[in-house]
């Protein structure tokens, strides 16, 4: 129980640290509003075009490549956890698996699918 109390105290302190500075700034700062300050800020350039646009399909290709490599790692997790108890063939199998993944990465890279156009 006392451990939970510790976590509670920790949470409260964290909240204070997070919330206090903006609140203080809001109380202490001088307020001189003008129309330019109210504009949408985007890297110093005025926004143009509608903001609700479709992404380029290429965005999805990156997402796809990431997704595949990311989830293949799920197969490596149990292997890594049990590494110390594994027989030799299991280690070699996983190395072959990783090599195939590396081949995939090299293929995607050499094809030029990783450069943003």
């Amino acid at each position, binding site marked *: 129980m006392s451990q939970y109390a510790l976590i509670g105290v920790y949470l409260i302190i964290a909240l204070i640290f997070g919330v206090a500075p903006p609140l203080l700034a809001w109380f202490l700062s001088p307020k001189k509003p003008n129309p330019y300050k109210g504009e949408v800020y985007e890297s110093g350039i005025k926004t143009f075009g509608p903001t609700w646009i479709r992404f380029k399909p290429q965005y999805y290709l990156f997402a796809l490549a990431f997704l595949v490599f990311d989830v293949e790692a799920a197969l490596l997790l149990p292997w890594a956890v049990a590494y110390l108890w594994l*027989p030799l*063939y*299991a280690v070699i199998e996983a190395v072959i698996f990783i090599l*195939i993944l590396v*081949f995939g990465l090299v*293929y995607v890279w*050499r*094809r030029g699918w990783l450069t943003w156009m």
Partner: protein
Amino acid sequence: MEQEIFQLSYLQAIVPELLLLVVGLLLLGVDLVLPEARKRELSVWAAAGFAIVALASPLAYLGEPQFVFGGMIGSEPLNAIFAFIFAMAAFLVALLSRDDERLEPSGVYYALIAFAVIGMDLMVAATDFIMLYLALELTGLSLYLLSAYDRRSRFSVEAGMKYFFYGSVASAVMLYGITFIAGLTGQTLYLGVRYLFASAVMPAWFGMGVLVLILAGVGFKVAMVPLHTWAPDVYEGAPTPVTAFLSVTSKAAGVMALMRLLVWIWGSLPSHAEMTSLIAALAIVTITLGNLFALRQKSFKRLLAYSSITQAGYVLVGVTALSPMGLTAVGFYLAIYAVTNIAAFTVLVLVSNRSGSDWLRDFVGLQQRSPALALALLVALLSLGGVPPFAGFVGKILLFAAALKSGFVWLVGAALANVLISLYYYLNAVRMAYTRAEEPVEPLSIPVASRWVLVIATAGIILGTILAYPLYHLLERAAMVWF
């Protein structure tokens, strides 16, 4: 039931699959470094690779039937035979793809074929539900991409899309069924589940319920009614060589996986008579439906699509027999069907290279343009229609005899009636090819690669009859292992 998970000698049982993996990766690698102008050479590389795999496939049988890799797959003569059939089909299709002018095959294309063949080999060899699911998915994912390969064609991309959604849902339903088997029996090995079913630990209704779920995944591959709706669309939209490949191989792999499930597991249920009548009913509906739709097609590609649904139905007639004789007949018919269908599709590719479409009327005057091509079409379609003396006739006799022996007289009667109906549209296409065109025609030359495909496939159709006895004997000995 305890089985070693790994021994070095087990690797021999998956030699075809390992070789295919190497072939696939090599093709991808060569594709990266090869200059654009020499891309056409890839088809020769790929064909050579598949030929090597076909030659090496007998190695997959370790000399006596046994389980390898913890019971995940079996090493049996039948698996080696099917590894050979699939590699040969890939070999022929790789050559054929070279001559399709509407297709620009790259390394990815051939690599996907190689990966699909790995999946199909494992589907036939799987003796564990996990392996069955993985093999099914590997086959499926490769084939979805292959059917959408021609990315500039709306038809091709749409076909890939449909195939993907139908196929993924079917395999998800199957997996749902597998979770129930695995969950309630604690087993995923076929033999373990069989034991629990046979000893009536699991009630019969549970077995039948799960069977229906699992039929969804496997029946989809076979394009069995009511899971056939994807087939005509995908077959029509996909590039023609891909259609030839998937209508032959993924169907065969699906039938073999289904047959193994039925013989090994559900055949041991105390009340498996209901199950065989279910399959028999599905078989006859599949045959009839495919026939009725094929009758009214104007596109030759679509006609072949419906005809291949019908052909799968004939194979299911053999599956219902659930006997060594049935299994032998199924294996024989699938092998013959593979070469026959590839021959028919090769003719289609060559004709539509000139005409730019798949219409049946493009075949008018084929005999004047190229007598050899017309003859190849004649042989292939007569064999599909079951006309003696071609191999399709022998195959159908074997299938129907096996079903008769197991007591399905009505089924064989209905199937025979359908064979007569199907003759109408097969002969109609042949008649087109032998009709004289009214306007003058230009001769049609057959490119070298396709010439080889036609020679090998036609030789297969004729040798299937001449060598029927030794072939049957070989398959029969292989089939006995299951019983």
